């Protein structure tokens, strides 16, 4: 699934917001391949939560629609949507498509 540019913009803008309060050596790269959480992930639990909250806010700003990224549904996915920026973008697209 190709990521919608509005979603990519929103996620990159969430990365900017997170980088703003992270030390220089822990900056996240704005790339769909950036590993967020899990093996070799860049975020700890608090970082992941902050990123998800920022991403939800940015997506609402970009698309005018509100979605919930972390919930029981995300937890029950066979593959975690929080693996990389790309997998999260796909998961956002799916949620937005469902609401249409």
């Amino acid at each position, binding site marked *: 699934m190709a990521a919608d540019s509005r979603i990519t913009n929103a996620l990159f803008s969430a990365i900017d*917001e997170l980088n*703003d*309060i*992270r030390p220089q050596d822990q900056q996240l790269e704005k790339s769909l391949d950036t590993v967020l*959480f*899990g*093996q070799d*992930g860049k975020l*700890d*639990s*608090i*970082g*992941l*939560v*902050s990123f*998800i*909250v920022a991403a939800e806010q940015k997506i609402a700003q970009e698309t005018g629609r509100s979605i919930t990224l*972390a*919930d*029981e549904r*995300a*937890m*029950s996915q066979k*593959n*975690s949507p*929080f*693996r990389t920026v790309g997998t999260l973008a796909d998961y956002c697209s799916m949620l937005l498509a469902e609401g249409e």
Partner: protein
Amino acid sequence: MPVEFLLNRFEEAGDRPAIVWQDRVCNYRTLLERTRYWQEWLERGDIDRGTVTVLEGDFSPEAVALLLALTSHECIIVPMTTAVELKKKEFIETADGEVSFVLDQEDRAEVRKLSGRGQHELYDELRERRHAGLVLFSSGTTGKSKAILHDMVRLLKKYHVERHDFTTLAFLLFDHIAGMDTLFYCLSNRSCLVTLQDRSPDAVCRAIEKYRVEVLPVSATFLNLLIYSEAYKRHDLSSLKYIAYGSEVMLQSTLDRCAQLFPGVTILQKYGTTEVGTLRSKSRSSDSLWVKLGGEGFETRVVDGMLQIKAHSAMMGYLNAPSPFTEDGWFITGDTVEQDGEYYRIHGRACDIINVGGEKVFPTEVEDFIQTLDNVAEVVVYGEPNPITGNIVCADISLAAHEDAAECIRRIKRACAANMQPWKVPVKVNIVDRIQLSERFKKMRRPDDYAQVKG
């Protein structure tokens, strides 16, 4: 000798592994030798019995040997890990520490003299009993940490009974009551304690696989992270027999998912507080949040929907706060519970404390800091439920003069991140026109408060 029963068991255990630290195995014979070494060192050295001694380290062989030797030397021990680095000065001052042992990366101990004098009336009581003490820190209602003093001899009593021998992961911290419980449970059963340098899901799973860990004591939040990280898919966790969780309220959805992912593993709920220690507990089943609490030396009762505990091993008292016990010696936990016969279901803190992944955050503490920042008129800090960490910290702020909201939020978050522990930094900051106040002019932190006013 309060630790002699443990040392006798170490002797019997001989070559069996006691502690795996930095991928090195220390057996019981070595641990016994190191404990004897420190016992003798303390006997001939210049540290008096009853000295308030800070022990900066983790579950390393030398730190454990020192903990035991200091206990037999009747010292008042203040364990401290790097997790509380920011609060170290405050903790040492509160405990009035006299001497400190600092363990380095190579597990070598360095002794440092501190400026404290080890004075407190509760310390005097302990010295009169000729018992060792243990000082642990928990959060206080005003945001200042409470220093909790235990009589080490009483605390160790429950470990005299031999129980099961399981290879156990030291996930919980060396300076927490639950971490101490893991340690003494292992030592008293001649079990192997596998320690961690990194508590990420992959590091935990790697340690389980490598050392065939059987018991995993963790927080509910960690189980969420384990599920999200999918680390369980990358490692062989077939050695696991028990997962014990505690320190915060567990979501039924997380528990169900764990029961599904680890069908052969018994999932147990633990319950304890720094003030009374860890109770023995029995979950109704692996997917049930109902739990039986008690064990020898513990009694429980519910008053006004809140759990109270009477414990033989309860703390002697706070060093820096009034006694929280009722007149007849019951500890008011502040946790609301439901009761069904012998079983309890714990619903969480009755007050405003925000539990972020097992770490308690007092709204007033965060408010106190934000309030000091430029252009902040009023601030209210509250928790919002979050499926990963249980809760997140949120702040509503009203400004004294107009300022661009986005820039102001960035500025406030940056200041919080630079000055607070990460879990205390508000994840959501909202700029509002004014802060909602109740009829009594109290800040309203919780949705219930709003509902009451609206209703």
